[in-house]
């Protein structure tokens, strides 16, 4: 039996799990696992060094269980997501080696379980990405869900509560997909993609609606789309550091991958477009677009309210998923490319940001935004990484987030969707406000006395962070490289990408060349620097040497407005935070509780069985006579 490259990759990944499982209690397991991730990445690059263009690579392994054929294969779309997954795994795992591990162990964490959970997550994600039919997709999907549960629950305590909430949502999603698969199977008689493509053409509108709702909500739960987003922030934020960065970067995107595969490729965006909602002007596609926009807005403004850096980023991450979906739903060449590119850009930014936050947490022991501040002189490199990340996330040049968001905005304007565009602008405003809160409260402002001895994060953490920051900048400068991958990926799901140049895209209605943009920007910086330095030498003062109104302020006085940041703004918009979704979730829980009480009542009443029996006899009498 000759192994294909995909088999090699999967075997490599399985071996990583095995190593983490067996040798996980030994020394330096983190390094071992990191090297193995690098190996997996090499195999992936061997598949396609310069972006994936060729035919799908099939796995030699295929099974037939109970009349169902299962197969696995890799195409450009899988490759693109796998690349992000493996790079994220490699860097986060690297981040965890050495100091972080030691501290985690001191705090009573289980390093073995952590690495095992990470390796399992990577392995299951690769299985999901490699799925070659709807059944193997579902198997991969469930495995990813449960592996995620394990990683979230590793920390114990609050984290298990969040993980429990996650798994309840995930199972609801899984069951929704399971139901959809059953209906597809009933209609197509098989779960192979070819058979489904044929069956979809013959489906009635009602059937298609049903399937779009089932699959859409199932995958949407993983992505944290409204109204299923409540689980995500706590679950990601409470995961131990590197795991949180890994999950934040890629985990939810598995939902996007599945949406692309099932809704876009199998059902076809054209078919979805034809599903009209009765008595309104919108159709299923508009519905998805609006869900995407609301997913951008609401969680982003919830992020604004958070006082824990991890929660702020996690809430924020939910909103970013909306941009990707929005871009892909527009399904024109610019929007789709922008949406998919944003997966990569966002992953890099989110991982960098979370790592920076965890680096600060590693040194200071807290991620509470009200208890930090002024760390820029203590941890300058971390500050740099965080700065790069927030510029990227907010979608400003010269970082990569600008490119993907520009493409999405552009496509919205070209398609004539001004309201959606307005929604994204409101979202972006929230993004900028909340990331500013993050960087301000952590690195700017007043240094707290207890943080005076804080040092820069160790190199084991700094190197992966710097690599990520570099990636964010390089993919911003030369977006042509990732865009070739994106274009190849789009082709596999039946969409076309834009014309690509090294610095951006070529389009009749307006091109983008980031090399020029960044050139101009840096020229501006240069002029600024010239003016700054030509103004003569500046005087350096100590960070705690502060005055207000002519009075010297001692370090123990909290004079900054870090506490209750944005209080004025919050006063204005607080009426909008009603927790309606939380209310919805609570009422469903109460309903289950109520039903549960009732059902137990049936079984626990003294005469229950006899009442029931008589009811049954009545039913008999009714049925028969």
């Amino acid at each position, binding site marked *: 039996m000759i192994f294909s490259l995909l088999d090699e990759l999967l075997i490599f990944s399985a071996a990583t799990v095995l190593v983490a499982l067996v040798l996980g209690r030994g020394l330096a397991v983190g390094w071992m696992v990191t090297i193995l991730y690098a190996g997996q990445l090499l195999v992936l690059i061997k598949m396609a060094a310069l972006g994936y263009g060729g035919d799908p690579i099939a796995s030699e392994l295929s099974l037939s269980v109970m009349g169902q054929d299962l197969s696995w294969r890799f195409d450009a779309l899988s490759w693109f997501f796998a690349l992000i997954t493996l790079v994220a795994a490699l860097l986060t795992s690297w981040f965890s080696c050495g100091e972080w591990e030691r501290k985690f162990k001191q705090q009573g964490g289980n390093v073995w379980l952590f690495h095992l959970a990470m390796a399992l997550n990577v392995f299951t994600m690769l299985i999901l990405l490699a799925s070659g039919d709807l059944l193997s997709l579902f198997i991969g999907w469930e495995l990813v869900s449960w592996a995620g549960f394990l990683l979230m629950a590793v920390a114990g305590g609050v984290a298990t509560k969040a993980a429990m909430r996650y798994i309840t949502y995930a199972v609801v999603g899984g069951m929704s997909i399971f139901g959809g698969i059953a209906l597809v199977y009933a209609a197509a008689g098989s779960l192979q993609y070819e058979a489904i493509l044929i069956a979809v053409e013959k489906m009635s509108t009602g059937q298609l609606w049903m399937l779009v709702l089932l699959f859409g909500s199932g995958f949407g739960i993983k992505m944290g789309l409204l109204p299923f987003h409540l689980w995500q922030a706590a679950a990601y934020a409470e995961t131990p550091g590197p795991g949180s960065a890994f999950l934040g970067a890629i985990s939810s995107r598995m939902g996007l991958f599945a949406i692309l595969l099932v809704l876009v490729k199998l059902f076809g965006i054209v078919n979805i477009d034809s599903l009209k909602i009765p008595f309104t002007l919108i159709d299923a596609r508009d519905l998805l677009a609006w869900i995407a926009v609301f997913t951008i807005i609401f969680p982003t403004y919830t992020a604004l309210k958070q006082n824990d850096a991890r929660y702020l980023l996690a809430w924020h991450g939910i909103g970013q998923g909306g941009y990707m979906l929005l871009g892909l739903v527009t399904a024109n060449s610019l929007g789709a490319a922008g949406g998919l590119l944003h997966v990569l850009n966002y992953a890099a930014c989110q991982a960098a940001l979370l790592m920076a936050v965890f680096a600060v947490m590693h040194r200071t022991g807290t991620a509470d935004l009200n208890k930090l501040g002024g760390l820029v002189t203590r941890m300058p490199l971390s500050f740099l990484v965080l700065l790069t990340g927030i510029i990227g996330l907010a979608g400003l040049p010269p970082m990569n987030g600008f490119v993907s968001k520009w493409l999405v905005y552009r496509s919205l304007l070209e398609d004539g969707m001004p309201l959606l565009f307005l929604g994204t602008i409101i979202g972006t405003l929230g993004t900028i406000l909340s990331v500013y809160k993050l960087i301000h409260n952590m690195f700017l402002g007043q240094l707290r006395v207890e943080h005076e001895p804080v040092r820069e994060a160790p190199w084991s953490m700094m190197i992966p962070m710097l690599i990520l920051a570099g990636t964010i900048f390089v993919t911003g400068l030369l977006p042509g490289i990732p865009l070739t991958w994106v274009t190849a990926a789009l082709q596999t799901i039946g969409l076309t990408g834009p014309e690509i140049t090294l610095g951006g895209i070529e389009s009749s209605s307006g091109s983008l060349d980031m090399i020029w943009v960044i050139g101009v920007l840096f020229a501006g910086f240069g002029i600024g620097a010239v003016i700054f330095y030509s103004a003569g030498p500046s005087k350096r003062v100590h960070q705690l040497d502060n005055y207000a109104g002519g009075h010297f302020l001692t370090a123990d006085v909290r004079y900054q407005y870090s506490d209750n940041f944005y209080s004025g703004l919050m006063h204005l918009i607080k009426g909008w935070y009603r927790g309606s979704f939380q209310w919805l979730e609570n009422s469903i829980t109460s309903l289950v509780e109520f039903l549960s*009480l*009732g059902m*137990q*009542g049936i079984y*626990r*009443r*003294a*005469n229950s069985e*006899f*009442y029931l*029996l*008589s009811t049954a*006899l009545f039913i008999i009498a009714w049925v028969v006579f």
Partner: protein
Amino acid sequence: MIPGVTLELILYVTALGLVIIGLAGVVLSSHLFRMVLALVIAEAGANLMLVLSGYRWDAVAPILMQRTDQPAMVDPVPQAMVLTAIVIGVGIQALAVSILIRIRQRYGNLKRREVAEKMDAEIAASAGIRRDISQDAPLGERPLSPLPAHTAESRGGDA
């Protein structure tokens, strides 16, 4: 006799009636021993039904085989079966009564409601959990403190 009503029909109706009386007795009686008695009645009805299912009015008992005129026989199979069923029924009744004796010894009486209450309490106690709902109380939190035992007793009826 009313035309159309044969002895056969009356017997069938009687059998069914016995079963229904038995079931009603089991459902309605509030004393465990009466439940056993009701079960006996229901079983008698079912057995009667079984015998009737193979009975022929123009035939003789299947053991009278030596007669010269060879008349038609009653179907012997249901009769054999009903014997088995009766034996099984008696066995189960005996078991039921013996269990009742034990319950009477342990719990002091055979009132259905009280036995159920005590059983539930015992299961909860052996599992080490607090019982959150009483059998007689409405479900959920009670705004007032529970009534003392004797007043709860005197409320009677189906609460």
